[in-house]
């Protein structure tokens, strides 16, 4: 399996789309940083009268930055996972692996671990940088240990999308796997928004919609859990958390973490079973 991990990592590094993605990510970070810089450079912004407003703006910019990160992380994960197996099947390169003394499980797990590792590094760097930038400009209260644990939770988001698209990739074309991944991601996002707005408006039905979409794909739950863990010192229901749908007006239950891990495990198991039993 380690050779599959090595080969897949080498493949990712050699892809031009990754280089382009990296350049665009750096651009994103640069624009985000410049934006934060100009907000805090506004005349009079440091006066005590504006202190509360600036702090609120800082938190909202942090949430917005992290939410944009979920798009970037999600897109990267979907693009990597969608073609992970189907592209090899379509081009015939899978025969280079499957005809060798190698179990099919090790092909799937090797690829998933390699893509997962890349996603993990990308997520850690991206969301960590956004957190540190916002914290630096707005003097937000972020505890390093909480940030670290929160980044792990953020990483569950691309891992979930990777698992979904890898499963689809063993059964469908690259395009179909990618479309399925994006559609499910979009459903989870909109469900998350409805849940948060519902919580702000005390509308139980809207919150339920969010819970149902999280059961379908718990990426939004992973995002909310991560934000909550990092900003654990901010009480639930405070203005910071409930001012926009990017905050955490409705916190997923403690079972959400268990559900995410169970979801990942079951999906990977299905992927292994499906790929092991199909003709190549």
């Amino acid at each position, binding site marked *: 399996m380690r050779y599959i991990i090595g080969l897949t990592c080498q493949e990712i590094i*050699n892809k031009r789309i990754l280089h382009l993605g990296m350049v665009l990510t750096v651009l994103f970070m640069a624009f985000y940083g410049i934006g934060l810089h100009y907000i805090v450079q506004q005349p009079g912004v440091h006066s005590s009268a504006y202190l509360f407003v600036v702090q609120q703006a800082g938190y909202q910019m942090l949430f917005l930055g992290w939410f944009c990160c979920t798009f970037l992380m999600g897109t990267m994960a979907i693009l990597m996972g969608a073609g992970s197996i189907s592209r090899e099947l379509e081009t*015939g390169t899978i025969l*280079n692996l499957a005809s*060798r003394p*190698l179990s099919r499980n090790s092909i799937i797990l090797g690829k998933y671990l390699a893509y997962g590792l890349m996603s993990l590094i990308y997520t850690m760097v991206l969301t960590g940088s956004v957190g540190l930038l916002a914290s630096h400009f707005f003097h937000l209260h972020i505890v390093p240990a909480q940030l670290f644990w929160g980044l792990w939770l953020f990483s569950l988001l691309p891992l979930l999308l990777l698992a979904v698209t890898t499963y689809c990739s063993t059964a469908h074309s690259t395009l179909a796997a990618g479309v399925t991944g994006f559609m499910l991601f979009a459903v989870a996002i909109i469900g998350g928004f409805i849940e948060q707005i519902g919580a702000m408006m005390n509308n139980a039905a809207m919150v339920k919609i969010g819970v149902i979409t999280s059961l379908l794909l718990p990426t939004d739950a992973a995002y909310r859990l991560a934000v909550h863990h990092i900003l654990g010192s901010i009480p639930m229901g405070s203005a910071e958390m409930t001012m926009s749908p990017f905050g955490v007006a409705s916190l997923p239950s403690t079972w959400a973490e268990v559900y995410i891990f169970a979801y990942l495990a079951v999906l990977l198991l299905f992927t292994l079973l499906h790929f092991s039993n199909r003709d190549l």
Partner: protein
Amino acid sequence: MLLEAHQLTKTYGRIQACTDICLSLEEGQVFGLLGPNGAGKTTLVKIFLGLVYASSGEAFIQGQPVGSCRARKNTGYLPELFRLYEWLSGFDYLRFSARLYSVPVRKERQAIDRSLEMVGLLGREKEKIRGYSKGMQQRLALAAALLHQPALIFLDEPTSALDPVGRRDIRDLIARLQSSGISLFLNSHLLSEAELTCTHLGFIKQGQLIATGSIKEFMQPGQSIRLEIEETTPEVLELLNSSGKLISYEGSTLTLQVENREEIPSLVAYLVQEGIRIYGVQEGSRGLEEVFIGFMQE
């Protein structure tokens, strides 16, 4: 027994790709599986490699069930539609293959150089595969199939991307591999190639293995003659089919089977007597093409 298959059947819905295939291959043999497009040749090879699961029946490579890692450990495979990882160099691809086959690290370089030399790519291994021609890529894929010195190599159309010189090189390579004790299972459309390289043949038609045996058995029975006649009418074909002599025809050229040379004058006389106008008679041995067409027209 190196390879044995018992009643292998593969169905895709209502389509039977292979039906009750039984065959065996012993060490040192070069087995050529011949059949038209869509006959089930590639499916059969894929079953042997565990890439496709048989619907029923069983097969073993050196006693290990096909599809198991143990069975694949001692086999090499050159797919018909080979595609390699083009971002790798030739050397990196072979090193990756060597590691998958558990070639000891200290013997890795030696094994890579030996297989590169065998396929005529030594000196080009540092180049990226995307820069290789199709023929070079096929040679590299073949090198990967050889580098762990397997007991059995499956070659699916091994010369499809090669020029005539390349084809001759591969034929020579097959002969060298055979002399070193390696068995080969060859799928090929090129009958001349099979005739020159195979020790044993199998003919597959619509998923059924209709005949197997040594190449001598197939080439032995009788000779053939080519007749140039005025016109190949249904009546002429009916007459020849009823006599069991017709091997094949193309336009006004007929290929007929004769038991021996002495039969030729009497056969020609009989045909003339039946009103067939003959403009030319050419004696020839019964080639694999005639054998093949004979089986396929049955």
